[in-house]
């Protein structure tokens, strides 16, 4: 039992370690991303300052809160940008699914670990951006550790939620080779409904309703709202419960959809 | 009146030296270091219209740089190139209209387009007269057997088909000079033959001048009457292929794998007249023997038999001398004897062109300094 656990953790660890190497292969591109994101942040900050030029609060948030939110949301946006669909589409297109299914580890868990490691790496790579946001754009972070705790757990849950959601989405790759179009639609929706470009509080009620029906907000808005102080820490337990329900539902659904799709591939020879 | 004239042509590359990593990059910014690599070193030659010239050398010798200089892609560091009376770099467009280039395995055809569409576009680019285009298309469909390929896109073609298509595209505008870089590489013998036949026919009927760079000595033998050999940027031979064939075509090499080590220096082997030991390995433990013999003096069976009498052989293989070894020998003056004897027979200069050469076909030291790149 201990043997098996150690072996599997070593395997998962090896997978997780692979991800950073992939990302750091192009370091000039890293600098490009950095500059591009600073430009983006600058635009955002000026935009929101202009928005608040004549109003002290909007939808109950003042300029400081909104700026905090937007800066953090931009830094944490990797959590809604997923690679799963691309990986899937690639595998199906190249006819490699069969090989992947033969690997001695749970297919889905392997990708989950890779996704989590990817997120961790993206966040680490964004630390310089965080520094700039703090020094130049006046980002203020909470001092209370409770806020950080609320943030951390909800981020972890949120990332998992989105991972399993995208898994279902990616199973569609089994049914069509042109997955790129689908992923573009998903990107657009994720960007908006996750709260990456504006806090959900500012959306009209009906749009907020739609956002609550989608899993995107659970992965970004929830954690960022804790960290930016928009949502008080006291709401944390309730938020976590909601996320847990989402997660359980999606894990089950994703495994069902996946086994159905795999059957299609193995029967038809993908 | 030569169609190509190359005078004192030189190309020097300035290669920046940079230490790896970020600190290296910063250092390079403040104190740049470079070395000069002379890719082409004061070469002279001229080509008459209708000639088929083989341009050979090992990789890195300067072949592709020369071709790029001839086609106008590169600017010379010193010296002159004249193709059809024009400077191919300065009068790039005018020169481009009259030349065709095959760049080894990089096809000029569009990956996803059917062959006929690619050809149509090429014809448009080169402004081929529509009636003439139709004629040539029919001709090429015949001689290159393209009739069934016209609707096929390049991505679906085999290597041999691709090369046939490539030749059609290259010659469709009836260029006066064609540069072929490794046209038969990777092809099987039958396809190679067809391609060589086609090139020969074009040269015969249209008088197209052909400059052929290749590693395939079969190509050279079939197509070229004249061969230019370049090594380390310098011309080391420019003359008839008959000389090379006579001198090297008769050699064969046998490599023996032996049971017991034979690498002991000083070991003597009893080998027949006309054969010589090339190497018996680098260390005492080696189990390999390489012998070279002159086909006109002795035979493979005699050499093998005589050696096997002395040494237990586990395997052996027979091969022609490679380009690299031929070039090395030429460089070492191996052609000298042949040329001297030819000169005696013919009573004339064995080498073409009126330029400074000693009798071995090697070039005199450059008298001017070498200009570095821009």
């Amino acid at each position, binding site marked *: 039992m201990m043997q098996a656990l150690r072996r599997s953790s070593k395997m998962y660890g090896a997978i997780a370690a692979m991800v950073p190497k992939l990302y750091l292969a192009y370091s000039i591109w890293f*600098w490009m991303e950095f500059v591009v994101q600073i430009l983006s942040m600058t635009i955002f900050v000026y*935009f929101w300052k202009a928005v608040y030029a004549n109003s002290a609060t909007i939808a109950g948030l003042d300029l400081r809160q909104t700026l905090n939110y937007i800066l953090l949301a931009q830094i944490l946006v990797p959590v809604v940008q997923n690679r799963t669909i691309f990986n899937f589409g690639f595998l199906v297109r190249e006819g490699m699914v069969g090989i992947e299914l033969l690997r001695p580890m749970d297919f889905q868990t392997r990708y989950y670990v890779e996704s989590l490691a990817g997120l961790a790496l993206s966040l680490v790579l964004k630390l310089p951006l965080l520094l700039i946001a703090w020094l130049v754009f006046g980002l203020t972070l909470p001092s209370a550790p409770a806020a950080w705790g609320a943030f951390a757990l909800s981020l972890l849950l949120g990332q998992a939620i989105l991972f399993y959601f995208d898994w279902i989405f990616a199973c569609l790759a089994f049914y069509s080779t042109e997955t790129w179009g689908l992923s573009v639609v998903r990107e657009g929706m994720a960007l908006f409904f996750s709260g990456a470009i*504006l806090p959900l509080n500012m959306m009209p009620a009906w749009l907020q309703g739609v956002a609550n029906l989608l899993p995107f907000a659970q992965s970004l808005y929830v954690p960022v709202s804790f960290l930016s102080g928009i949502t008080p820490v006291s709401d944390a337990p309730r938020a976590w419960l909601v996320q847990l329900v989402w997660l359980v539902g999606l894990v089950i659904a994703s495994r069902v959809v996946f086994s159905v799709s795999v059957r299609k591939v193995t029967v038809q020879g993908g | 009146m030569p169609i190509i004239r190359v005078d004192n042509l030189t190309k020097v590359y300035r290669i920046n030296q940079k230490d790896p990593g970020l600190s290296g990059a910063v250092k390079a910014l403040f104190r740049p270091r470079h070395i000069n690599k002379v890719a082409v070193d004061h070469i002279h030659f001229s080509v008459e219209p209708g000639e088929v010239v083989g341009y050979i050398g090992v990789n890195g010798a300067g072949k592709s740089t020369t071709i790029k200089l001839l086609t106008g892609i590169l600017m010379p560091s010193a010296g002159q190139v004249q193709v059809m009376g024009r400077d191919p770099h300065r009068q790039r467009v005018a020169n481009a209209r009259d030349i065709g280039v095959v760049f080894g395995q990089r096809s000029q055809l569009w990956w996803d387009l059917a062959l006929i569409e690619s050809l149509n576009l090429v014809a448009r680019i080169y402004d081929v007269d529509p009636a003439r285009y139709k004629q040539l298309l029919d001709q090429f469909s015949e001689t290159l057997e393209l009739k069934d390929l016209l609707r096929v896109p390049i991505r679906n073609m085999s290597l041999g088909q691709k090369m046939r298509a490539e030749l059609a595209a290259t010659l469709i505008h009836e260029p006066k000079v064609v540069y072929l870089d490794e046209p038969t590489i990777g092809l099987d013998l039958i396809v190679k033959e067809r391609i060589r036949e086609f090139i020969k026919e074009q040269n015969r009927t249209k008088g197209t001048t052909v400059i052929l760079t290749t590693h395939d000595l079969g190509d050279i033998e079939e197509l070229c009457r004249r061969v230019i050999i370049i090594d380390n940027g310098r011309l080391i031979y420019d003359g008839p292929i008959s000389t090379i064939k006579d001198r090297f075509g008769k050699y064969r090499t046998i490599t023996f794998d032996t049971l017991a080590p034979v690498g002991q220096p000083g070991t003597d082997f009893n080998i027949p007249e006309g054969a010589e030991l090339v190497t018996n390995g680098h260390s005492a433990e080696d189990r390999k023997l390489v012998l070279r013999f002159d086909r006109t003096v002795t035979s493979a069976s005699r050499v093998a038999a005589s050696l096997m009498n002395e040494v237990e052989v586990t395997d052996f293989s027979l091969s022609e001398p490679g380009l690299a070894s031929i070039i090395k020998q030429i460089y070492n003056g191996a052609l000298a004897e042949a040329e001297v004897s030819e000169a005696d027979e013919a009573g004339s200069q064995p080498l073409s062109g009126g330029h400074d050469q000693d009798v071995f076909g090697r070039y005199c030291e450059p008298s001017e300094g070498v200009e570095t790149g821009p």
Partner: protein
Amino acid sequence: MLRYLNLYGWFLMQRFKILMEYRMNFLIGASSTVFIQAAGLLAIWVVMGQIPTLQGWSFDEILLVYGLLTLAKSINHMFADNLWTIGWSYIRSGGFDRFLVRPIDPLFHLLAERFCHDGIGNFLVGAVLVARSSTALGIPWTPLNLFYVVVAVLSGGGIFIALNLITATSAFWIMDSIPLTQIIFNTNDFARFPLTIYNRGIQVVLTWLIPYGFASFYPASFLLGRDIGWLAWASPLVAAILLLISFRVWLFGLRHYSGTGS
């Protein structure tokens, strides 16, 4: 000149033949950009719903600025997209040499090789935004205004293409020109909004250094009757000068390429 137009037509035709092969991809490509745009526009609409104006600019006025920028951007997207991959697809593989042995201008050849149909989607989005916002704002479509918009969009496109060309030319030295091109290209996002929301420094950069401002803000200001003086008429001049500079830079890069053979 005429011959080049004719030739471009041929390149275009062949490109469409290739694209028709991948019909699904064609449709997806043309409509994909719409989704990304939609998310951003929706956000702006939501925010504008909560405030009277953005420093004196109404939602429709902002749409006009955004739309003009998108139109100009789409021209670059459609006609000059191949410049992005000049390093990876042509210089690194040696494919660029092919352009140099053909009897046509290598820049023309590079651009004509790839008309990017995705840009059509962008163009339509921009056109719809301009049409909708100008109707809502009651901008009269007099012949002068129409002519002005056409010139402004073409100038804007020229500015985009010129900047694209300048950054792409770096490929002759460093091969991977994409990071540099991406950075300069991304500054156009500033011009999505009226330049007045930024500080003086940024305004100067976007007007005189990386003049995307002339693709959106200044023409929009003119159409909206805002007083910007002679800057209203400067777009074509700025575009022309920038294009000239960019072509010079390109030729300089070409000379370097034939000097060093990369």
